[in-house]
């Protein structure tokens, strides 16, 4: 076989594999969105859920998912950023760094339920944080960190060394160089990491059942005081997220319309993630353009 024939066959094999993946993707997304779309209505999005009668909505769960994402990122992003900077800029290439990396990666293979129980026993019980969004956010930080650290470190590495040299040669401190030159250049990669980890936050259920809880108390959306227990901004209140809600109605739900709630909620989840992806990308591009001074 000549190299050219091999090339043609190989390309066809690759195209074929891609086609299969695309078909799977279409099937999955199509199945979720088509079966869920008919159940999405304004009423569904804006009314609270119901524990036994039909006609419940997902208003609070939807908000909780978003709020949990924000809190999780507030906790995990700075930690991941700092650690990624340490690993890519300060750490030497030795066994100690290898150990740290392995330790962080092992975190990502822990089953959700183990992290959930750990969070439950330590944060919920021991630290008296109760079933709360905050406990949930800390538990999710465990899953988020490996993914975030890895992707941020990767995108920092991808910035050419000549950029670091340029900064340092001007008498800038390493820190200033990292912050002002390397980070902006690495921004698109960092965003991908955030989007991926956000997906994980949206989709996680097992870890949250034991930490953020699986009840959605009625929220008061006009109460902006985060310390008040009925306020929607209070991080210390229990919060059932969309994914947990889907899990609950599917496993123990006794509402007559459990199937349609689950389908509708799944479709909403997908759409929210989609919007989030596009939004994050648009903001990223905008920031990147602003920083590079391009018009």
């Amino acid at each position, binding site marked *: 076989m000549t190299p050219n024939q091999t090339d043609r066959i190989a390309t066809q094999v690759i195209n074929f594999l891609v086609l299969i993946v695309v078909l799977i993707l279409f099937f999955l997304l199509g199945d979720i969105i088509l079966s869920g779309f008919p159940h999405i209505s304004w009423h569904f999005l804006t009314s609270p859920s119901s524990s*036994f009668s039909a006609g419940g909505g997902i208003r609070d769960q939807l908000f909780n998912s978003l709020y949990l994402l924000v809190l999780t990122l*507030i*906790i995990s992003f700075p930690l991941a950023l700092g650690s990624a900077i340490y690993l890519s800029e300060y750490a030497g290439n030795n066994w100690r760094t290898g150990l740290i990396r392995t330790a962080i990666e092992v975190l990502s293979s822990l089953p959700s339920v183990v992290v959930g129980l750990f969070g439950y026993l330590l944060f919920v019980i021991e630290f008296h944080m109760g079933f709360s969004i905050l406990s949930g956010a800390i538990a999710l930080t465990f899953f988020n960190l490996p993914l975030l650290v890895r992707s941020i470190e990767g995108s920092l590495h991808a910035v050419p060394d000549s950029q670091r040299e340029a900064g340092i040669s001007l008498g800038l401190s390493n820190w200033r160089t990292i912050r002002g030159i390397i980070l902006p250049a690495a921004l698109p990669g960092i965003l991908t990491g955030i989007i991926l980890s956000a997906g994980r936050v949206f989709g996680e259920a097992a870890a949250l059942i034991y930490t953020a809880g699986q*009840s959605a108390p009625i929220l008061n959306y006009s109460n902006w005081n985060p310390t008040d227990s009925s306020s929607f901004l209070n991080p210390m209140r229990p919060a059932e997220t969309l994914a947990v809600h889907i899990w609950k109605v599917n496993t123990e739900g006794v509402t007559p319309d459990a199937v349609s709630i689950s389908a509708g909620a799944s479709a909403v989840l997908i759409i929210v993630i989609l919007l989030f992806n596009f939004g994050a990308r648009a903001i990223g591009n905008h920031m990147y353009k602003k920083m590079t001074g391009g018009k």
Partner: protein
Amino acid sequence: MHKKTLLSTLVAFSLAGLLLGGCSSKSSHKSSSEDTKAAKVTKITAVGSTALQPLVEQAAQDYQAANKNVNLTVQGGGSGTGLSQVQQGAVQIGNSDIFAEQSSGIKADKLVDHKVAVVGMTPVVNPEVGVANVSMAQLRDIFTGKITNWKQVGGKDQKISVINRAQGSGTRATFEGAVLEGKKAVTSQEQDSNGTVQKLVSSTPGAISYLAFSYVNDKVKALSIDNVKPTDKNVTTNKWTIWSYEHMYTKGQPVKAAAGFLKYMNSDKVQGSLVNKLGYISIHDMKVTKNAKNVVTK
């Protein structure tokens, strides 16, 4: 300029994150005790059985609407979790599907039982198997693996696929207590939730499992045992023997706020309508009682 803002935001975030992570234990502690002083809001947490959760959750919502000074949190986690945590004093109420006495590792004498509802359970099969009634002995043989084909009990020629519940789960303990007479169930598929079992039985040919009454729908077939139908009425007289209580345990006698809520759980408001709406049987309707050793008295 915007770079500076970006950085300072990041720094602020990281500080906030570390502070929240590190100190929230103290702050939350403080704020909850301050709340108590200011508004005298008592916080009650009930954890445990997922089967009982919807009932308690709904009751808690109604109760809080009338009693502003009580803040109730109801969570699942499983009966084991509920019993462990109430025994440790980490939560005020532990919800359980089983008697504390039936659970090893729990000092039942330290806990006070509050029975709030009764759940009836029925064996369910895939509608295709062509069986509507079995004897108790046949049912036992199916679950211990002695009968392996539906034609042995008058159905069509189809292998029996047993789907059991998780070991240690309340539903399984109840079912095995009432049916197996101490024999060991065959090792088979195990699922831990009513919803999954219902879906599996409806889609797997030859499947048999058991469900709480409220999860039985037209996609699965509930079996009669010795020609007794699984109905609420038969449960109240113990003609249908597979049923259990739903318990809410407290460590010692409940203190004021928890006592108030537990009293509400036993009131006609809950027992008269809510319990039935959610598919349980009211404790008030029972004509018999059962103790931890499965002994029934009229």
